[in-house]
């Protein structure tokens, strides 16, 4: 099936019959209605953007298309033929390849070996390296990577290169439909150029590309059509040329009422935390900000923006290379979490499972783990009754649903696990609390609960920095929103700013950025 340029020029794919057609896709997870009758049509030779806020249903939808999940209802048609997908291999067999955000590559094997792993080309039984290599070189050239990379160990590649290699790997399977899940999130501008060349090459060869992205500024450059998902429903599906960044942002957030806007007044005191010209090579540059006691400041940025790195630098886990941090007027050095904790800074990490919980240990163990000195006699002997009392107090105070403090954290729901990790930060009231994605993978009830706790803590006089890519959460919590883009603070909004404005600023609508001057 070939697509002529004229088909695309008018921005509609009506002339070409869709290669993939989804109709009435429904999916529920427990009580959550993730997809509500989603329909989608993708034509060959089309780059089709799928956008939506976190939780809008994008990832559920691509999981269903790639066979990783099965829809509760609805139909998937390829070339008009209904498909009974239920496994990734059958989807792959039908020509649907997916590139996820984390490259699934083997570090000790070369790029060429990775591409053909499990389906090696053989000659006399041995791997036919020559043929494999020439195929790989061809693919690498096609997507604009250095062909010499074919014989380099994947472990020696930069993360961005690995990302591009996994796209090349997907291409080597000669898919008819290629799903790219936020391929640009971790790429720099130069690498995005390479990516776009690769995507355009695919379009030329008639591959249908489903392109998921948060960077709305990219859409006009690379996509032909945009489908916007909101709360599990398609709210728009239009040619890209008919949509501006601003329009897409408005479609994504809808006209939902601002959920009970908190009205907080911050006393005009000198800042507790003042950061000047903070840098960490390759992660963030020249970050200056300040937070007052009782103030909630949000760092809002898309995945890979560097917002999380700023928080981790302030906690001393991944220290900054240069710049100054002053606490209540005194300059401090934050080289390790110990430094941070000594100055009253604590952090709720983003990845609960990896960085947060001790899954096979009790709630009491998890809460006390960061306060062993406090909960001890003379720093040596654990004061177990006090430990239990503290944990029990939190069980009721922040409503952790568990039979007792001896319950193992691994057996709790995500929301309750997150509350346990949050409780750990609250045992000694922090002067400054850093929160990274505080409600990721948490149910709605627990989310409200966590927001309430954070605001209470602010009312009690703690300074709070929230890093989040969840826009409603940011607007709900923050007294000020700082937008992080490409490792720099690019805009600032006061409480009550419009969702679409903030989103557009973070997603790269430069006009909006200019309108809002940095204070």
């Amino acid at each position, binding site marked *: 099936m070939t697509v002529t340029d004229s088909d695309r020029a008018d921005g509609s794919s009506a002339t070409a019959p869709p290669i993939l057609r989804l109709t009435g896709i429904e999916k529920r997870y427990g009580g959550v209605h993730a997809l509500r009758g989603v329909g989608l049509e993708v034509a060959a030779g089309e780059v089709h953007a799928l956008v939506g806020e976190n939780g809008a249903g994008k990832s559920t939808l691509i999981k269903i298309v790639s066979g990783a999940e099965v829809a509760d209802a609805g139909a998937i048609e390829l070339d008009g033929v209904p498909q009974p997908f239920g496994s990734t291999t059958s989807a792959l067999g039908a020509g649907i390849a997916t590139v996820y955000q984390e490259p699934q590559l083997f570090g000790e094997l070369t790029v060429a070996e990775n591409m053909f792993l499990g389906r090696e080309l053989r000659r006399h039984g041995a791997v036919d390296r020559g043929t494999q290599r020439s195929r790989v070189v061809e693919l690498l050239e096609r997507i604009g990577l250095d062909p010499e990379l074919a014989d380099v160990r994947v472990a020696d590649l930069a993360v961005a290169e690995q990302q591009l290699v996994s796209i090349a790997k997907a291409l080597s399977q000669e898919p008819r439909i290629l799903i790219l899940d936020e391929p640009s999130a971790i790429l720099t501008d130069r690498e995005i150029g390479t990516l776009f060349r690769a995507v355009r090459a695919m379009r030329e060869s008639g591959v249908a590309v489903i392109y998921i992205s948060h960077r709305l500024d990219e859409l006009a450059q690379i996509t032909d059509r945009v489908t916007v998902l909101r709360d599990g429903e398609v709210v728009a599906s239009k040619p890209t040329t008919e949509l501006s960044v601003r329009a897409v942002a408005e479609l994504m957030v809808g006209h939902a009422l601002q959920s009970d806007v908190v009205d907080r007044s911050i006393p005009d005191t000198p800042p507790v935390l003042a950061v000047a010209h903070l840098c960490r090579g390759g992660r963030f540059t020249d970050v200056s900000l300040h937070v007052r006691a009782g103030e909630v400041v949000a760092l809002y940025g898309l995945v890979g923006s560097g917002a999380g790195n700023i928080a981790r630098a302030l906690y001393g*886990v991944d220290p900054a290379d240069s710049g100054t941090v002053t606490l209540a007027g005194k300059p401090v050095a934050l080289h390790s979490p110990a430094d941070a904790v000594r100055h009253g800074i604590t952090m709720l990490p983003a990845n609960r499972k*990896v*960085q947060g919980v001790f*899954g096979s*240990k009790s709630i009491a*163990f998890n809460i006390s783990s960061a306060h062993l000195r406090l909960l001890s006699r003379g720093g*040596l*002997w*654990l004061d177990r009754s006090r430990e239990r009392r503290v944990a029990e107090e939190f069980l009721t105070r922040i409503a952790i649903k568990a039979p007792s403090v001896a319950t193992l954290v691994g057996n709790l729901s995500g929301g309750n696990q997150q509350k346990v990790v949050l409780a*750990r930060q609250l045992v000694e009231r922090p002067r400054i609390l850093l929160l990274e994605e505080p409600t990721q993978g948490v149910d709605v009830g627990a989310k409200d609960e966590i927001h309430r706790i954070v605001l209470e803590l602010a009312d009690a006089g703690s300074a709070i920095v929230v890093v989040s890519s969840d826009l409603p959460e940011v607007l709900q919590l923050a007294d000020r929103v700082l937008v992080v883009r490409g490792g720099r603070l690019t805009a600032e909004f006061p409480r009550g700013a419009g969702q679409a404005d903030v989103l557009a600023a973070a997603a790269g609508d430069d006009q909006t950025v200019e309108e809002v001057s940095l204070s």
Partner: protein
Amino acid sequence: MTTPTVAPPPTPRAPAPARAGARGGLGRLLRLILVERVALLTVLLVVVVTWFWILGDNGYLIARYDSDYLAAALDTLVPLSILALAELIVMVSGRGGIDLSVGSIVSLAGMCFGFMVGHWGWPVAVAVPATILIGGLLGAVNGTLVAYLGFPALIATLATFYAFGSLALVSNQNAPISTKPVQDLHALTSAVDLSPQIPSFPLQVITFLVPVVLVVWLVLNRTTYGRKLYAIGTNDVAARFANINVRQTRFRAYVASGLLAGVAAVVIVAQFASARPDAGSVGNGMALPAITIAVLGGVVVAGGIGRVAGVVIAGLLVVWLNAGILLFFEGSDGSQFQLFALGALLVSSALLNAWTLRRGRSAG
């Protein structure tokens, strides 16, 4: 040996409430035995002791398997259990924690002990703490390699197993030290008769084993250090975010292992009335049985899980089972069947572990 991809397993105590309700008390008891390692080992221990006792009473054994015999058998328990506790500590510390060098530390620290007492005439009260300290120092070498320099524990302790063992052999030209003062050390491990009701048992049980078990239990369960140790073993990234000094905590685990090996060295020199340069490396060495007992006692290789009670009961089980087997066979056959029992116990308990974990996962 550390497969980094192995996720820290969910606890073996993960409840499966839906199934529990259906069965009665018996079912619950059975589940407890299968899931709770200490319960399983206790049941096994009772079964083994009762069985051999009955066999002995009915003349199937070459000697009576009675309380006197059981008490006397404890002398092999002491060094073995102390080293198994050392393995418990390093294995709990996570990241593939293991100490293959404990046997060589026993040899080297034991030779130092021999020199201090046998050649330099140091008083025992000074030489014993000095020996334990030397053990700790050797453990610190392992700790530095593993915690601060990032060597995989298996490699680091394999290397020091060779190096320490070699130094022990070289120290006295491959000859044991058994001068008069060293021989007199045997008094430390004589049998004690407290009263006619209590069978006489080796002195080192109360002078060394009980204090060591108590101290290790207290450190692991009642101190802040114990908490940190379990925390880094369970999830060392989370531990870092919880402001725990991961490297220092792991380093100290290896030092503790060395200290315990130093204690075992003292016991072994006293027991044999001689400081032998190959004390800790004869046969397959002392590390292997110690690791075996730790694993049998429910210590998880991936780290973060393991209890003193499990290790101590596993030690008792192995020692008393071995003692029974020894009476069941004529000649050296018994020692061969001990190997069989140890291997079979280890593999079957590991299979049981894997099975309960899998069930726990599918039920949860």
